[in-house]
């Protein structure tokens, strides 16, 4: 239906020097079928060393299925998956040693304390007690739950629980980290903390595959973004390059009470305007290009005596990109 | 209506558990009931006895066997020695009599032959021993004086044929009433389990702090909400009670269609109310779902063991029966006993009423305790 649009945008030669980075994950033609429904449809993409790749898509787009397939938890119908240059299989323990996963559901033991939970899961990778103890303390430090070491999961708030969930997945200092919607139902403070923590992990050399349906998050931390819908990639590139796909340069919104239908039609006819929408309180006009769109908008409103309370200009969001490409909103 | 529907939904969700409980308890009741025929006259209990006759040819031993056949229930156990030993252990037979090879010879000579017995040690075994002993004593006494075998046998039989006259003065259908008593006693365990488990589960779901907060701030009148909850619980308990009463007609038979049958049913209804109140009280303690199964099992099994449901009252030590007084099941079981054995109901109506009042008292105590506990918890929360 939609062709995949690529915007590599000198991604690899800019800050990172001219070396071609290693491909950490190579996904080729991944397909997963559930009876007649294709949850993932011929998906191909790569994840490069030390990048944070965002997998962005609405609920049910196939993000978790993709992750579970890459991790060899799910049987997939066809395709090939390579991690660190080797074929990924359920018994590829040498590959798994360097992988850390933070699942969407909180995966901790209710019966163990915060410290014990992290220690247990780290112990599945690190046998040396002394080393493990250091790692566990570091992980606690990184996610910022040092005050809650002896607490049980039941006693933690949603945000702290998510942080614990992350600590359990990264304590063993993996080189490749999968984060599957780690900030669902998390308070803003915890969310920021988590996002900053992820950036730090990359600074320490990790490669990260991050799935979410929050566009603000991918814009904040991801180097590259893949937009996925109904199991297919519909766009791929950096945040800026993707936004250009929205064919929107700017969106100007005015808060106006009771605007007649004619006004919306007239607004659509403004120079460079591509669309105008009035939702009862706010008139939003999208422009494909142009420099003085704001001035023209003000003139239009004044000349027609449309009194506005507020007037502001926005850059396009990834939601706009998604809307442009699929006709749907990212968040339902 | 909302509350009622939610109640139904929660029951539906736990329907598998309910079915498991119900099926298990029905099978219990069916298996534990004695298969008595209707009896309206005196019938001698005949202990089950197995005879091993190693002197089949002699007339004396044949006579002995004949006597045993008339006074006991001769059972032939097929199989190995182990099977026979099992039969004795499980009281399928209460006594094994071994007639020695020289039985007839000894009798002819006027000597007392040695007869071996192996018993299960209970009252039926003691009775079997009495029967055997009586024959042998008579035989041995006669054998000292009478030498001719045929005359001897005639004398023995003549003496043993003497029976006293027995008047049976009850008009009660003791067999059917015994069955009814067993069924209704067992039903105490069944009904209480079904009611306690489900009602506790449902009420504690409603009592969960998050649900309760929502309910309190909703526009629904709290009194109406409480009443709806009560009505739903009551309806469920009523259905359980009705089900077990219908089942009683199937299990016990026609004799349920009588005044006594009605009193059994009414007694069971009062007991149902106390179970409901107990369930309400337990749910006010805000037990976790996981704890409910455990607590319900301990309570229902405890009540049933100590109040004469699983183990008949006459076998329980007196101090246990003393403790049982603080359980509603005890008073319910007492009434079942009165209804099934008393000749004239008018004579024992007072006792029946007192026991019912005690059970009602329990109901009130449970309900009031529940209310007090839940008010306190509301304050703290």
């Amino acid at each position: 239906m939609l062709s995949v649009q690529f915007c590599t945008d000198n991604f690899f030669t800019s800050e990172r020097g001219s070396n071609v980075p290693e491909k950490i994950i190579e996904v080729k033609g991944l397909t997963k079928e559930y009876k007649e429904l294709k949850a993932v449809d011929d998906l191909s993409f790569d994840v490069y060393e030390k990048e944070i790749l965002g997998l962005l898509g609405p609920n049910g787009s196939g993000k978790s299925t993709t992750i579970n397939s890459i991790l060899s938890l799910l049987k997939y119908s066809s395709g090939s998956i390579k991690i660190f240059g080797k074929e990924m299989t359920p018994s590829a323990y040498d590959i798994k040693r360097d992988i850390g996963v933070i699942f969407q559901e909180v995966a901790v033991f209710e019966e163990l304390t915060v410290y014990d939970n992290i220690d247990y899961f780290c112990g599945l990778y690190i046998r040396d007690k002394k080393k493990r103890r250091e790692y566990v303390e570091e992980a606690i430090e990184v996610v910022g739950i040092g005050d809650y070491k002896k607490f049980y999961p039941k006693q933690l708030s949603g945000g702290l629980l998510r942080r614990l969930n992350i600590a359990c997945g990264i304590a063993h200092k993996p080189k490749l980290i999968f984060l599957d919607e780690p900030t669902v139902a998390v308070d803003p403070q915890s969310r920021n903390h988590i996002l900053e923590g992820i950036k730090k992990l990359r600074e320490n050399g990790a490669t990260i595959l991050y799935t979410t349906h929050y566009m603000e998050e991918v814009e904040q931390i991801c180097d590259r973004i893949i937009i996925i819908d109904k199991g297919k990639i519909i766009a791929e590139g950096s945040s800026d390059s993707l936004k250009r796909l929205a064919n929107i340069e700017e969106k100007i919104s005015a808060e106006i009470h009771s605007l007649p239908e004619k006004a919306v039609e007239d607004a659509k006819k403004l120079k460079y305007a591509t669309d105008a929408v009035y939702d009862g309180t706010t008139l939003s006009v999208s422009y494909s290009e142009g420099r003085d769109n704001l001035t023209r908008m003000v003139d239009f409103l004044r000349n027609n005596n449309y009194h506005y309370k507020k007037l502001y200009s926005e850059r396009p969001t990834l939601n706009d990109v998604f809307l442009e490409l699929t006709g749907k909103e990212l968040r339902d | 209506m909302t509350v009622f529907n939610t109640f139904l939904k929660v029951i539906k969700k736990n329907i598998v558990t309910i079915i498991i409980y119900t099926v298990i308890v029905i099978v219990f009741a069916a298996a534990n009931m004695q298969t008595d025929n209707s009896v309206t006259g005196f019938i001698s209990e005949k202990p089950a006895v197995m005879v091993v006759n190693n002197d089949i040819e002699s007339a004396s031993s044949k006579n002995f066997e004949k006597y045993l056949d008339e006074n006991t229930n001769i059972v032939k156990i097929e199989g190995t020695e182990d099977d026979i030993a099992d039969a004795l252990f499980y009281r399928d037979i209460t006594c094994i009599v071994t007639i020695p090879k020289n039985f007839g010879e000894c009798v002819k000579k006027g000597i007392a032959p040695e007869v071996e017995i192996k018993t299960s040690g209970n009252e039926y075994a003691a009775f079997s021993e009495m029967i055997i002993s009586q024959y042998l004593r008579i035989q041995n006494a006669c054998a000292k004086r009478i030498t001719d075998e045929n005359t001897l046998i005639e004398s023995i039989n003549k003496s043993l044929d003497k029976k006293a006259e027995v008047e049976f003065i009850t008009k009660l259908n003791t067999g059917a009433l015994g069955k009814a008593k067993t069924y209704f006693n067992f039903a105490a365990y069944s009904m209480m389990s079904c009611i306690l488990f489900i009602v506790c589960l449902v009420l504690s779901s409603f009592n969960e702090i998050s649900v309760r907060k929502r309910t309190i701030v909703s526009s629904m009148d709290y009194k109406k909400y409480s009443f709806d909850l009560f009505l739903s619980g009551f309806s469920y308990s009523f259905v359980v009670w009705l089900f077990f009463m219908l089942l009683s007609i199937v299990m016990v038979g026609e004799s349920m269609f009588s005044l006594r049958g009605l009193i059994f049913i009414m007694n069971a209804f009062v007991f149902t109310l106390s179970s409901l109140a107990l369930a309400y009280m337990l749910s006010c303690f805000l037990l976790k779902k996981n704890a409910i199964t455990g607590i319900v099992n301990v309570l229902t099994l405890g009540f049933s063991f100590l109040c004469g449901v699983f183990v008949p009252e006459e076998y329980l030590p007196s101090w246990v029966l003393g403790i049982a007084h603080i359980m509603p099941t005890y008073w319910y079981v007492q009434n079942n006993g009165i209804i099934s054995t008393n000749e004239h109901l008018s004579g024992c109506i007072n006792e029946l009423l007192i026991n019912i009042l005690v059970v009602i008292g329990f109901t009130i105590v449970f309900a009031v305790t529940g209310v007090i506990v839940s008010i306190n918890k509301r304050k703290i929360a």
Partner: protein
Amino acid sequence: MFFHNFRYSLKLLLKNKQLVFWTLAFPIIMAVLFNMAFSNIDNTEKLDPIDIAVVEDDGFKNSLIYKNSLESLSKGDDRLFNITYTDEKKAKELLTEHKVTGCFKIVKNEPVLTVNSNGINETVFCYVIDEIKSTGDLVTTLGTEEIKRNIASGKINMDYEAIFTDLTEDVLESDANIKDVSVSNMSYIMIEYYSLIAMACMYSGLLSMTLINYRLANVSAVGKRSAVSSAKKISIIFPSLCASFLVQLVELALLYAVLIFYVHTDFGNEFPKIILLSLVGSVAGLSVGVAVSVLIKAGENAKFTGLVGVIMAGCFFAGMMGVMMKNVIDKNVPVINKINPVAMITDGLYALYYYNSSERYLFDVISLAVFSAVILLISIRGLRRQTYDSI
């Protein structure tokens, strides 16, 4: 890796309150309940003195044989009757109120008994009176014969009273010459305690089920973590099973302690064999838990309740809720108890208590081992699976 997983498995088990209740507290509570309910049952099984009412009128006072016989039968610690001597009206009252089993009166020199229900006591009462009647009749017959003989042989002057008194004594003291070869281990209440031990062995399945649930990716979120880790599945599952087994052993030891020192259950003399049976029984329980975890597709709570229910059903067929049930099943539908591990354990303990040979016991132990092996084999496919169709 082994000790790491073992240590945490232990923690997970011991901190799970629900689990600790069902596997430790519940069997001990049941043992205490059983003890309270059954402590008297062996005593009451024996024949207690029967309460009767005797109508003490002239007819009775003149019937020496009944008067003397009843008197001697109501004396001493092992007496047969507790007699209330009264008038006819009061006697009938006592009977109606169920304060006595029966009434005795003499009508026209013959005994008449009155009872109002059927039961062993009523039967014994009637039989004893018949016995006295028979004895009396025998004495009369034999006495008459002797007198005839004496007359025939010319002895005319006889002491008739002495003849009948001697005869009565003779008949009453006539020895039945019965040899009682009963065994002493006849308390069938033991079955209840044995099936309780069997239940405790099988409850080890709850332990293994809980831990295996934590290890399977398609059952729990933490299972997913284990699945993506670099730890081999066997290195996680095996320590879990060992931990379950250890906890089970400790809990079983505590139950045995209660049964031996508080309840004074009789286990016979074969304690090592009992330990072996318990160990194999626990393995059977563990294997059932593994199977339920791997093979049953349901929520955790449903699995837990389901397993408890299945074990209790097994206990029922093995005689815990009525000893006779085991006998009924063994005789009529033996296949049920041939595949019921609770019954195998119960039967093994029973065989040690009651029989001299070990054949039946060994059969039960081997059956349990075979049962465990089969169940584990069935589960192994599910255990080893690493990828799923859906998660």
